[in-house]
């Protein structure tokens, strides 16, 4: 089916909206587009370069020092090892990586992270999408209820972990609710089978409202007349949700999918605060495994190798996003 015209229309609407809310800067957009040659034209190119560098220098230094160099250091260090016998660093090639792969704790961590990723992302995105649909329709007090869903995004991840550690206590809020429903008390964080789902619930509590905001923006960009036309043609509401709303928000949806996946790959605070990777390693997500390897086990070089793997996976996912969105533009 062809929905080609709609993203264009929605992009144009979005731009218009930016124009009206952002004042002069935004409205002036089109005037700037053809050949972004600098104000001084060709004449002052060399001089301009020097001035531009002055403006860029503080940021470039801090980006290099605080983002790129540590990544480079981790890459280099991941090929070395500290050897007490030979004294000092020795080059071990991919030795740290093969050590990692041979390590059952690491393998379990990868498996846990994979399962976690495959559950948490679809769940959060599906819930965010359905809530975005619900809260963009007219309903009594809709704005207030929507605000309550969004509210937890202000809670810092570590603080939400602290809050839920109390909720999940044996005598905590979660079990009181189960008691109300005459369900026996559950162990939650101390159970191998319930700990990871418990963490997923708390992450969704702070995450869903945030991702919903992007999807609400996307849904609001869909022109009303498309829905009206479909409605007049007798298309059922559920069918419209599936074949109109969903395809038309696929750009924000793709963004949310990737950003959410990356964010969830880096989950750390709840694991460190609630379970320390346990019980029996069932919540040992990779980010916590890196931390644990570096500080509790003290194997910094192998931890660096794991950092590199984590960064590589992230970059692959982001690269996929660019492919996804590029293919979409045609």
């Amino acid at each position: 089916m062809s929905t080609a015209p709609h993203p264009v229309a929605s992009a144009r609407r979005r731009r218009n909206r930016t124009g009206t809310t952002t004042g002069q800067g935004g409205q002036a957009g089109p005037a700037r587009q053809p050949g972004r040659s600098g104000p001084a034209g060709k004449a002052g190119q060399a001089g301009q370069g020097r001035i531009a560098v002055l403006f860029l220098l503080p940021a470039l230094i801090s980006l290099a020092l605080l983002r790129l160099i540590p990544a480079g250091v981790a890459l280099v260090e991941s090929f070395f090892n500290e050897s007490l016998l030979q004294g000092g660093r020795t080059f071990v090639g991919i030795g740290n990586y093969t050590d990692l792969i041979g390590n059952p704790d690491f393998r379990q961590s990868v498996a846990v992270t994979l399962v976690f990723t495959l559950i948490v992302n679809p769940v959060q995105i599906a819930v965010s999408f359905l809530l975005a649909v619900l809260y963009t329709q007219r309903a009594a007090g809709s704005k207030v209820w929507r605000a309550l869903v969004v509210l937890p995004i202000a809670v810092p991840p570590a603080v939400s972990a602290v809050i839920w550690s109390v909720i999940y206590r044996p005598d905590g809020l979660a079990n009181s609710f189960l008691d109300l429903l005459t369900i026996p008390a559950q162990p939650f964080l101390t159970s191998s089978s319930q700990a990871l789902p418990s963490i997923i619930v708390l992450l969704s509590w702070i995450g869903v409202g945030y991702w919903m905001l992007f999807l609400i923006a996307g849904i609001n960009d869909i022109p009303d007349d498309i829905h009206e036309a479909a409605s007049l043609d007798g298309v059922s509401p559920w069918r419209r949700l599936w074949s109109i709303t969903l395809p038309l928000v696929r750009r924000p949806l793709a963004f949310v999918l990737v950003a959410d996946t990356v964010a969830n790959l880096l989950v750390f605070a709840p694991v460190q605060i609630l379970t320390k990777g346990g019980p029996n390693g069932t919540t040992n997500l990779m980010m916590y495994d890196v931390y644990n390897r570096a500080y509790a086990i003290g194997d910094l070089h192998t931890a660096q190798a794991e950092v590199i793997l984590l960064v590589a996976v992230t970059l692959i996912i982001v690269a996929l996003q660019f492919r996804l969105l590029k293919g979409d533009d045609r």
Partner: protein
Amino acid sequence: MNRRPLPYFARSVAAALIGLAFFIPLLWVLTGSLRPGNETFARLSPLSWGSFITVDPTLENYSRLFTGDIGRATLNSLLVSVVTVVAGLAICASAAFGLSAFRFRGRTAVFAVVVLSFLIPFDAIAIPLSDMFRDWNLTNTFTGLVLPGIGNGMAIFLLRQFFLAIPTELVEAGRLDGLGWFGVFTRIYLPLSRPALIGAGLTLFLFQWHSYVWPLLMGTDREHILGPVALANLQGQNFVDYGVVFAGAVLLTLIPLAVILGFQRYFIQPVSSSGLK
């Protein structure tokens, strides 16, 4: 008339129930922060209205908060976040200006560096970076806590997108009137870019306020500990006064909430448009 997946009444009930479900943990925390710590769990079985509402609120937990470590840690968080926003905006806005007002060789390469730097997730490289900071004696210093927040590729990217839309004619007029490039930046670009600056400032603020891995690695002594780390430490102790823990959680949530609410118009717009284009 316009048929929807659910009728109006069912929709309203669903919207309300879901909203309340998201709110209940926060309400419980807020109520718990307003009653003595030994009542936190006593009011839970059986669950009733009294579990969530208190008729005789007390501010004692909050006053104990301010005499204890959490109050100090919250002030530290505020200091680190505010300094990050101010320094970060100065650095990121001037970089964005350098990338958008000038045409020079290597501009594409510089921009690629900016993009690459925000594609590398900070938390993942926090461990190698903390090792470097230890060598530079930045552990347990405010400088060490602030630094990673100031060079924010995402903020540069957002500001550059906005700056590119500022018309050349304005800059030319300014130059003819004798403005230097710094004048063009501060007198023309910055005043025109308030929304983008606020959006980027929010990004910088929340990056710091919500960070946990970095302050855990970098600042753990009493003078430099940040709010979330201090709260997590408090919760991990053997004898915990949950009234105080909840008061700390409320405080650490209300501050970013106030900031987000104050600038909510700018909250999602910049992030979403950057992701979509």
